[in-house]
């Protein structure tokens, strides 16, 4: 394997042994970006100089005999909705094209303390709204396994970068599956922790009650290492939970004998692509083979989760995104004739020109469901559905240790295939959305391939039981080869020229 194919853990071991330096790793990753990102288009901004300087500092500290955290010197990329002080943070929107935050997100502060090396900011669906990264206002990102296909979304940039070796790991965000589904499409591990485990401070909100920072890593051990670094209470986030954070690597025992695993049958219905169903079925067999007790169970309200989500999330988004009004920062529309718009015109033109089609669609839906007369009919009802879903999970977790579903009913779409069918796209997240509605932790990990494309499996646990899903995921991973597969990337743009 090449350096860029290695995991955080492997590279950490090598650095500790002295067989490689952070600067060398960083140079390799930066070269990889130069070589392949013209095809993949994962990066919105590459921070080459800062990355090399940070790597060099880590090397110096290690040379000085300092004991460094596991993430020290390992290059990572951040989804472009995670605020980085002094580094442009665009949310892949024209609205924030020129926005340079004067502050770091809490997760960035935590990573900086670990000596992390940031290689840049990664592409996404505009303001995290979408499932293909085609709604980026700048350019779509391509799936490293098949450049004609989407990497999933909205954290398509982070997932594609990690899969392509353009970052060793990445952070994304997950509001309805935005970390798990791209992880599934790109054949890597994506974790959405419990709502409240990781601070949202400095992460540009989409839907505040659903948003959570997610991790994108090459395997489960890396996921545990990254969680160790970024989990924990933050007084800056009112939703942040004051819970004790375990060392997540201690759950990686390899033993899942007797674990009770539930498979909600409603999530194996019509929409599920038979090719995905096949792979998933084999994965379930594998889990049984490893000693787990796999059982079909019922999750009757699963079907209501998607419509309820598409009321709650846009409602919150319509309010969260109202601040982008051209008054203080970001894009402001100005007339061509050098004059000034009046206030109302300025608002309307700024928002009309600054936001893309999916963001506008959600703002309009959100505004509608909160408007007088609709609130009770839609918003309040959706909140009730949310409670039902929460209760249903609670009931299921009385009988099962974890629940398992495919991460997505589909294989990665071809670019352009789904972008004009918003409803179909919304339904493609039907396995991941209920998890956000209940605030639970879930992981997506590679569980096989269909027609050369990765398929992901989702494990769900009760709140703050991240350790439990890491344990099951790790055992599965250790007994399957999928996480070691890397996309067969050949330079496309390079060979053409």
């Amino acid at each position, binding site marked *: 394997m090449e350096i860029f194919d290695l995991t955080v853990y492997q590279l950490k071991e090598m650095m500790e042994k002295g067989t490689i330096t952070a600067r060398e790793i960083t140079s390799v990753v930066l070269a990889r970006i130069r070589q392949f990102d013209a095809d993949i288009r994962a990066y919105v901004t590459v921070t080459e100089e800062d990355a090399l300087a940070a790597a060099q500092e880590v090397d110096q500290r290690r040379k000085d005999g300092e004991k460094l955290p596991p993430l020290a010197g390992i290059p990572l990329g951040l989804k472009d909705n995670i605020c980085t002080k002094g580094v442009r*943070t665009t949310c892949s929107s024209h609205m924030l094209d020129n926005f340079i935050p004067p502050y770091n997100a809490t997760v960035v502060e935590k990573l900086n303390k670990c000596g992390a090396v940031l290689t840049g900011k990664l592409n996404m669906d505009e303001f995290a709204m979408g499932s293909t990264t085609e709604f980026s206002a700048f350019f779509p990102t391509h799936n490293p396994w098949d450049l004609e296909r989407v990497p999933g979304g909205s954290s398509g940039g982070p997932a594609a970068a990690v899969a392509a070796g353009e970052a060793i790991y990445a952070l994304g965000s997950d509001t309805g599956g935005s970390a798990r589904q791209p992880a599934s499409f790109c054949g890597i591990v994506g974790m959405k922790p419990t709502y409240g485990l990781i601070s949202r401070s400095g992460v540009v909100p989409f*839907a505040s*009650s659903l948003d959570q920072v997610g991790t994108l890593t090459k395997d489960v051990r890396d996921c545990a290492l990254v969680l160790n670094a970024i989990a924990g209470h933050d007084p800056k986030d009112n939703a942040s939970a004051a819970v004790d954070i375990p060392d997540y690597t201690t759950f990686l025992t390899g033993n899942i004998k007797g674990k009770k695993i539930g498979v909600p049958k409603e999530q194996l219905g019509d929409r599920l692509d038979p090719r995905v169903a096949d792979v998933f079925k084999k994965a379930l067999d594998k889990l049984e083979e490893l000693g787990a007790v796999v059982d079909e169970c019922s999750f009757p309200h699963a079907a209501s989760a998607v419509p309820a989500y598409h009321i709650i999330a846009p409602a919150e988004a319509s309010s969260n995104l109202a601040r982008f009004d051209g008054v203080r920062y970001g894009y402001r529309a100005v007339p061509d004739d050098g004059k000034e718009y009046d206030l109302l015109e300025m608002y309307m033109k700024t928002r009309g020109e600054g936001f893309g089609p999916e963001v506008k669609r959600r703002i309009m839906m959100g505004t509608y469901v909160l408007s007088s007369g609709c*609130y009770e009919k839609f918003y309040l009802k959706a909140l009730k559905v949310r409670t039902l879903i929460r209760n249903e999970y609670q009931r299921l977790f009385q009988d099962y240790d974890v629940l398992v579903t495919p991460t997505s009913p589909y294989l990665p779409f071809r670019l352009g295939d789904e972008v004009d069918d918003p409803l179909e796209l919304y339904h493609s997240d039907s396995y991941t959305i209920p998890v956000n509605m209940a605030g639970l932790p879930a992981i997506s990990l590679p569980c096989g391939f269909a027609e050369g494309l990765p398929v992901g499996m989702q494990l769900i646990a009760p709140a703050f039981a991240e350790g439990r899903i890491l344990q099951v995921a790790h055992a599965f991973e250790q007994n399957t080869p999928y996480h070691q597969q890397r996309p067969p990337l050949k330079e496309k743009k390079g060979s053409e020229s």
Partner: protein
Amino acid sequence: MGKYEAVIGLEVHVELRTRTKAFCSCPNEFGSEPNTNVCPICLGMPGALPVLNESLLEYGIRTGLALNCKIAQFCKFDRKNYFYPDLPKAYQISQYDLPLCRSGYLDVETEEGARSIGINRVHMEEDAGKLMHGEGKADFSLVDLNRGGVPLLEIVTEPDIKTPEEARLFLENLKTILEYLDVSDCKMEEGSLRCDANISLRPAGTDIFNTKVEIKNMNSFRAVQRALEDEMERQYALYESGESPVPETRGWDESTGSTIVMRSKEEASDYRYFPDPDLAPVVLTREKVEQIKETLPELPAARKQRFVEEYDIPAYDAGVLTSSQELADYFEECLEGYNDPKKVSNWVMVEFLRLLNTNNMDVQEAKLTPSHLVEMLQLMEKGTISGKIAKTVFEEMFTTGKRALTVVEEKGLMQISDEDQLAGIVDQVLAEHPEVVEDYRKGKKKALGFLVGQVMKITRGKANPQMVNKLLLSRIQ
């Protein structure tokens, strides 16, 4: 007008004097350079999250308890969504259907007797920034966000107020209570206390609700009363001419003494309230509320009552003395040194308040402290100075902050009680005015006053009056 009665409700916004803002740690200060007390949170930068300032909650509970409200065991914050350049997030964090406090009342003493004004609710919210329009000929407006995120309480009364005067009295009482609670500066001119009023008229004695009109822009309690009086007349004239008021918001114009239309209520905005997902609901235990209750100071009404009973002073005097906490404290501190409530109350209410008013000063600003007054009263009691001289001493102490004895010594105001010295002066006066002595002896008792006056004139007021009386009488009777 007698055919109609007014139905008035008030909405009062109170800026709380917490150390920091409602949802961030920026200083809560008035008068700083524009846009200096700001941070990513109160600027509404993306990703910055609000965190509740616990003092806001505590101040809200204190106020609710003082207004006899029920404190909610569960309340939440909601977003009020609208676009305006002074509102950086394009929503205001406020409370909609589950406010912190409900169902209270405040008693007001009117000429017709005591009236209890219902408090519908007290809720917590954040203030918006300030816009400055058209400085000079500029065709732009400037935004100052220092005030953005400053904690506010909104206090909403029931439509229980019957006259404009009652509205003013309510506000005065409310201000006194808020000052006692030490939760706000209550300075209308700095905007830390703002009041909007809703008013409608109805045939006297009925309980119907006619179209109401909202009045804004009143920057003093007096203005509230005047604006409501003006609006009553306007609505009265409309009804008398067969018309009716339309639902609208009118602004009070101090210079013309009338209200003008600001906007029609028909274009009412839809604020799309919904629970703020960034802030957890507030759950209060009975213990916590009880704890805060125990820290409440004695409130104006209770203190007034106690003054009447404990110090045996008239209700009116007690009312004046307790109209501000500082004044009431001042009074009681004086009593600790000189336990004659009536005497002390006279000096505080008459002389002290007069001087404060003429100099436009607060109690705390006065150089004349309770111990100054106590020492002066002791000098009077000892006969070192007369009551008349005391007024001079009091004014001098007020101006300079010097102690009473120092003033008396420096100005030579010591009372003359030396009998020999006074006898000489008395004899001189009698010799100079034999005709007055004659009048007195003929039964014109008032003549004695003239003679005393002459002695006082010669001694520049310092003669011991009782002694002068005695000496005069012993000679002319």
